[in-house]
């Protein structure tokens, strides 16, 4: 009786308990191997690339504003060491942003890699936007690699060996053991991958015009910018010209309507959209905190009557940029907008023709919109570059251009008095530590 009782109880309990104790499934995630299965999941992963662009180290704030902070548009008066270091122009190789931006931008690359590798073979008859997704993935990868190159590589010197480690395939099985240890490709090879991606993307994207994603025109506008950086001025001119003339975008009438909005504008080629539900950090870090206070030299640089000089408000003894004044952090990041295309076409015209006055009209387009009179003509290239830099600063401040502009137009030393090797940020310390082949940028320590 006792034994029987015990046996029955034991059997009962074992049956009860052995069912599925060790089988648990995440309830708010998917296993990587089952995530990409059809058109709908491809679309969701494609959007995932944009949501990864929204991280703080990338377009959520730091990639954009650290650029202004590293130059003379923003000054640091806050708490965080990371911004302090960037603001002081002293870029330690373990700077938090330097470390995290590398990883975050490469995350976007990896999402694109997976889509590029797998989208063509997905079996789904209802997958009608397969070409758009594939094109978009190529263009997104181009954007990410270009942003990496501008920050970490010698983008201004196509003969330099200091390009990027180029990973163009997905990591097998999502297994960390299978991540390749890549050496840096040359700058020329890096540009080549970016151009290949864009050249593949643009025809595939023909007809895709959603300006909150990388659409046909955004891919063209991006190629204009990349061509400008790479010194292919003729191509830069053509791409910018195509966007300006045939893209259907128009300059907003005044700068307030361009910036004091949380919507896309008539000028938006590609806006990365933030909402009160999906916030950036721009307002928080410019208005609520003191990490990116406006450098007085920026406000002092405006000409009399420039409407853009009014895009600031003063609180707690410092100026704050109205470009980021939505208190819900819902201002979009204007990744590519028409205003920049005029400035690209202007610059490309001058350097392509070696005529310092060839781009004056486009400069004046932008000046007139800000309420300024025409400028020019320019007698020398020097004179033109001064005016161009001033115009780009006035127009594109707090949008992440100033530092790269000073670098590629070779004014870093003149304007900021900074050593040449600081034209680029260092390769992050963590990456050097775990790689046997990755090389540091010249001038920076390797450990």
């Amino acid at each position: 009786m006792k034994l029987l009782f015990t046996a029955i109880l034991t059997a009962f309990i074992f049956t009860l308990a052995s069912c599925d104790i060790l089988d648990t499934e995440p309830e708010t995630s998917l296993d990587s191997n089952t995530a990409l299965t059809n058109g709908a999941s491809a679309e969701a992963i494609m959007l995932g690339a944009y949501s990864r662009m929204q991280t703080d180290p990338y377009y959520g704030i730091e990639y954009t504003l650290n650029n202004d902070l590293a130059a003379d548009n923003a000054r640091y008066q806050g708490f965080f060491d990371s911004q302090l270091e960037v603001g002081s122009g002293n870029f330690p190789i373990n700077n938090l942003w330097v470390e995290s931006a590398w990883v975050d931008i490469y995350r976007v690359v990896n999402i694109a890699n997976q889509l590029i590798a797998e989208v063509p073979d997905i079996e789904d008859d209802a997958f009608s936007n397969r070409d758009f997704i594939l094109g978009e993935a190529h263009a997104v990868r181009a954007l990410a690699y270009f942003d990496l190159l501008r920050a970490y590589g010698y983008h201004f010197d196509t003969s330099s060996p200091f390009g990027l480690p180029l990973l163009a395939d997905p990591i097998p099985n999502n297994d960390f053991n299978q991540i390749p240890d890549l050496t840096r490709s040359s700058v020329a090879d890096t540009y080549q991958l970016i151009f290949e991606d864009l050249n593949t993307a643009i025809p595939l994207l023909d007809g895709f015009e959603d300006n909150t994603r990388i659409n046909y025109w955004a891919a063209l506008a991006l190629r204009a910018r990349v061509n400008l950086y790479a010194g292919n001025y003729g191509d830069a001119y053509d791409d910018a010209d195509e966007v300006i003339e045939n893209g259907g975008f128009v300059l907003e009438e005044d700068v307030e309507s361009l910036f004091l909005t949380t919507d896309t504008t008539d000028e938006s080629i590609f806006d990365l959209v933030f909402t009160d539900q999906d916030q950036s950090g721009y307002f928080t870090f410019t208005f609520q905190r003191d990490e990116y206070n406006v450098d007085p030299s920026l406000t002092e640089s405006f000409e009399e009557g420039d409407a853009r000089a009014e895009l600031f408000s003063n609180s707690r003894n410092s100026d704050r940029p109205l470009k980021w004044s939505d208190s819900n952090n819902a201002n979009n990041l204007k990744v590519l907008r028409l205003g920049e295309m005029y400035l690209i076409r202007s610059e490309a015209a001058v350097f392509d023709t070696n005529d310092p006055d060839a781009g004056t009209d486009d400069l004046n387009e932008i000046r007139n919109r800000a309420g300024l009179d025409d400028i020019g003509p320019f007698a020398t290239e020097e004179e033109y570059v001064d005016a161009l830099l001033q115009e780009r600063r006035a127009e594109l401040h707090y949008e992440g251009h100033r530092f790269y502009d000073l670098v590629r137009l070779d004014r870093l030393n003149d304007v900021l008095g900074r050593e040449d090797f600081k034209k680029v940020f260092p390769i992050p310390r963590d990456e050097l530590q775990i790689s046997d082949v990755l090389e540091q940028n010249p001038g920076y320590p390797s450990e």
Partner: protein
Amino acid sequence: MATQVRQFIFQCSILLLTLPWLSSSLFAQERERTGTVVDTNGEALVGATIYLEGNQQQGTVTNIDGEFTLSAADDDIFVVSFIGYQTVREEVGDRTNMTITLELDQQMLSDVVVVGYGIQRRSDLTGSIASVSGEEIENQPVASIDGALQGRASGVFVSTPSGTPGAGITMNIRGQTSLTASSQPLYVIDGVPIISEDLSGLFSGGQSTNSLADLNPNDIESIEILKDASATAIYGSRGANGVVLITTKRGESGQAKIGFSMYSGFQEVTNTIDMHSSQEFLRLMDDAARQDNRDLGTNYPENHVSNTWGFDPDDPDLQNTNWYDEIFRTSPINNYELNASGGTESTQYFTSLSYFDQEGAQIGTGFERISGRINLDTEINNWLDFGTSLTLNRTIQDRVINDNSLYGVVINSLAGDPLMPVFEEDGSYADPFNYFGWWMLDNPVLIGEEYKRFTRTTRGIGTIFGVAKISDNLSFRSSMNIDYTSLEDEAYTPIISRESQNANSNGFGTFGTTQDYTWLIENYLSYTNTIRDKHSINGLLGTSFQKSNRDFSSIDAQGFPSDQFLKLSVASQVTSASTSGTSWGLASYYFRGNYTYDERYLFTFTGRLDGSSRFGDNFQYGFFPSASFAWNLANESFMENQSIFSELKPRVSYGVTGNQEGIGNFASRGLFGVSDYRSTPSLVPTQLSNADLSWESTKQFDVGVEVGLFDSRVNVSADYFIKNTEDLLLNRLIPGISGFSSVTDNIGEVENKGFEFSVNGAVVSRSDFSWTSSFNISFIRNTVKKLEVNNQVLNDSHILTEGEPIGTFNLIDQEGVDPQTGNMQWVDLNEDGVIDSGDKRIVGNAEPDFFGGFGNTFNYKGFDLNMLFQFTVGNDVFNHSRASYENLGWNRLDPSGAGFMLPDGNNHALADKRWMEPGDETDIPRASLSNKNWREYSSRWLEDGSYLRLKTLTLGYNFTPDITRRLGMSSLRVYAQGQNLLTFTDYTGLDPEVNQNARNPLVAGSDFGTMPQVRTISFGINLEF
């Protein structure tokens, strides 16, 4: 101790003893005998067993008056026994009525301890286990039992990181074994491993809530702390941090006892910072300008700052706000408890209901708990017993944000501007942005009073168990257990707060829930036998299956009509809402074997096989064995003729235990998570896979000795241990080109080794006066042995370095103040001419050299006096708070002198020791409007955190039986108690026992706006009917 153990043995007797006489019949030729069994005080003993020698079938037990009736012949002998008492043989003779007196068995009473899945005689132990009785921690004015354990057991470092009521507490048994996983022990209540982590989702600065505060400390009978591998290996993959076994009170058969106890008291913070008055503040600011003129060649006029601000530093009528006085208060603490226990021979019960109510010593805080318990044991027949333990509790924690956060109460008070009032004349809260301090982001009184943050928990822990006696030697125990927590978070940030105004949100609120449902089924067989008197064998073989599901929800809303509301339905806009869930499971098989030869040589082997849902596919099961040996020297023949050692037992153990708490539930899997873009859901890769992921593994060697001297009047226990933890879960850095910086992997290695010593003894033991004394001390050295990447900078103040302990400070160093200039002499480590984070070096650590406690108890007639001191020596504290209130005039904005001066804020009175004139020898630099002498993360704020604290002092009086009898009670005690009455320390901050990051031991020992400990004085009364 005595009561506790008696009850244990009693409970255990249900398991191990048979009551065969119940089924026996009587012989006809004998006479009825009646009798009473009493103790030496003449009190009736209920449930004592009486049987005829040589015929165990014929017996009975005493009733609730201690009486029995049994037939016996004149030449029979009664064998009378009762758990905890010495067994008596009584010749029957021709008596028909007799009184039999039993004496307490001292040896046996101190002899039984609870171990994993069972109990053991202390003399049979081969492992290291510390015991704390429920009596020792009863009626202490603390919210949770873990806090009451401070200073009471060697090798156990307990610290209360914050004085916030109901806040989380840190307990490290033999050091910190883990870097990223928890170093907290496993808590097992009446055999149920419980959820002991913080389940609240509310942000509160660095502090966590304490889920152990869900339990009523007065329900506890005893606590055993399992320390070495021999004791903990039976808990396998959760044993590496030690195990705390908590046993709750159970009923005894006999007359029902009704107890009522209450205490009532008040609390205040142990210390506040002596701050400058407004006049002193202004003079310091003026001095800063004057000093800058001398050192920096600036050209400020006399009284530059006070003139700029428009104040006269000699004006006695200046506004003078002492912010600490405004945020701290004297607050009440109350506890009421009613319990009843008793039972018949076959069924016993213990039931209690208690209410604990604590208002915090800081505005805006409090903790409330109502808890009920019923523990029931019943004997169904002579081979089957059933029992249940059930507790249901409700707690409400009312708290504020503190520590390193923008809108904390203490943190905003740190350098609070004394010129700023709390309220404007119109009764509204003063806004710091209208005053001169840069530091304060909002009025701390507003934050304390107007922010609402509640965490309400309802928790039930229930067990039902059955014990079947299969044969005399073999029994089977089966139990089913549930630990269920339903937690609600509710918070509201008022419209009038800066936080709400800055975000233009018109007030914002959060409501969140966490439901944790854990079930556990355990079954084990116990075997016990003694073969040929000398070979004693105990065996245990069991299984355990546990599964936990947890669901979360959270809703955020903003746009409130006014600050009178808290509920989200009145909000105009829901800004986010989410639900999620997770789960884990554990399937385990365990055994233990004890073998004792001739009460002299003792061997124990244990092992547990744990399968966990958290482990990677390649290591789903882990095995955790241990072995130990002890030698009862006192039982050797050559020890017979000495009277010094009543016990002398060297022991040694070695074993492997694990820690799986640090592994996220799905950390081994490659995952895609859900995010969104343009309000459309998107999928993003969130984690790479690691099929090799497994537990952290701790190998522990322990050698110790138990010594009993002078008939156990003095007991000494000493241990040396080496605990080596391998396969630490760390983030392995991986190439960032993968889009990830790290995966969780088993990489690191940490060592804890130490020596622990405890002694207790009866100094005086006379009938009307006794004095017992105890002392314990532990020296534990923690060393990080291996890391994935050495010299990991964890944050601005801490570093993780091989060869150094966890909690190592990495700061800009200084070599004092230059007596000529009054400036700090910073160490330019990399000699680049700039003082920045590149100049940081290791300057100290948060690990104490040693810690412990000592206590004394005096009994004189009805009076008792008990005191416990507790100490921690040799740890450094980074007094980060001081960086704000020792700013010495640093003026954040515009040092050119144009516009308004906006200094950090006020300074503490210690700033009067600053450098004033050339030749001054001091370690506080000159005042300055610049930040030349101020480095936030520098050793200027590193202080010695050693302290000695009078933790508890209790004076009680037990009324004599003749008085209590006249009052109709069985006992009556009144007492007065003090908690944290005295603290001796050189630390200049609020309290040396502090940690702004209670959740992360790697960055231990920082103080930044942390609520200090409280001092409590209470008066109590215990009645029993």
